[in-house]
């Protein structure tokens, strides 16, 4: 066997290392360039919320919001569902003060509670709240028991009663599962505002991060008087209203 001296050893090792480094770096560069990156998980440093000013919000504004939501998510044209079976992710609600007879109109959707009753009652953990406060239904796990619909004080959830086709790519929907406003989570994750917020030209509906002191919603909430619907339930909703 040939004896390996120090000089030869260093020579071969350097050559091999250099060779491997050249080839390997080439491989890494090409594969990394080809593969699209995944975004980071959301954190609880943010909490998405909405402020709806019912003094500024007109009835046609609410209709626009409903239409924008239907167009974005593709609900509302269920041919075989009747009456209460129809999906209603966002609704126009009229409230009347009995004493003063003052009528205000509001858009009512999932309030994205901090402590959502729908999540408490779900037997399969399908009803869930994301770290950033958006309440969603994981339809992979949903068994369609509709406990969450019973538990929701806002009647915000609907059940799909019929077989659907041609769903939107970003919003899968199917028979036998519960669905509700997602706060346009697919748009929020891209840094855009929800469809209903974008459909209102005035600042009657403000969307943003409730925790961020520089956000418009945070600053407005500090200034104006606002309410949560059924604040007595202590759910700490993400959707707030002013003017009611």
């Amino acid at each position: 066997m040939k004896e390996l001296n120090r000089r030869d050893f260093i020579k071969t090792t350097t050559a091999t290392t250099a060779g491997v480094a050249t080839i390997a770096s080439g491989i890494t560069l090409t594969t990394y360039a080809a593969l699209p990156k995944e975004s980071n998980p959301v954190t609880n440093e943010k909490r998405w919320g909405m402020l709806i000013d019912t003094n500024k919000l007109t009835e046609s504004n609410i209709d626009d919001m409903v239409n924008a939501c239907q167009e974005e998510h593709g609900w509302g044209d269920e041919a075989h569902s009747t009456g209460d079976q129809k999906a209603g992710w966002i609704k126009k609600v009229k409230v009347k003060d009995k004493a003063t007879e003052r009528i205000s109109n509001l858009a009512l959707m999932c309030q994205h509670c901090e402590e959502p009753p729908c999540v408490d009652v779900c037997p399969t953990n399908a009803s869930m709240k994301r770290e950033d406060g958006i309440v969603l239904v994981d339809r992979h796990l949903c068994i369609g028991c509709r406990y969450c619909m019973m538990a929701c004080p806002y009647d915000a959830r609907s059940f799909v009663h019929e077989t659907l086709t041609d769903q939107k790519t970003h919003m899968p929907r199917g028979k036998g599962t519960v669905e509700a406003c997602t706060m346009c989570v697919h748009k929020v994750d891209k840094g855009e505002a929800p469809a209903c917020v974008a459909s209102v030209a005035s600042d009657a509906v403000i969307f943003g991060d409730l925790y961020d002191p520089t956000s418009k919603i945070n600053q407005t909430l500090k200034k104006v008087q606002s309410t949560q619907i059924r604040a007595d339930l202590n759910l700490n909703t993400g959707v707030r209203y002013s003017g009611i």
Partner: protein
Amino acid sequence: MSRLLIVFLSVMLSSVVAQADHHIPNLGEKATEFKDEGKEAHKRDGMSHAASLILQRKMHPELLSHKRDKTLRQGVRGGVIQLNKCVECHTSVDKNGEFIPVNAPDQFCSTCHKKVGTSLDCFSCHRTTPAEEL
């Protein structure tokens, strides 16, 4: 002895016929184009293309359900594994130029799923053709 030989040969022959019966599923419009251009789909780091394809065939349910939980529950978006990307490449076009649902009989998903006898539940909710704007 010769009888044994005949039995052995017929067994060999039938296994060859059985292998020939294993036909390649309809890959779909874009995927076929991709393959014809000689590009290596589903190629993974440190794996040959053939091995990557086998991994994709065997593991796609696990990959997809892992990613679905990450996307829905943690808001992780983008990346390589996306069901809508599967649909985008593996759908075929009919004579009128319209997309055939990927789960329709003899289409990419249903071919193998029928053969191995597993039900396909993705498309009771997910869209079966590429998005409208494509």
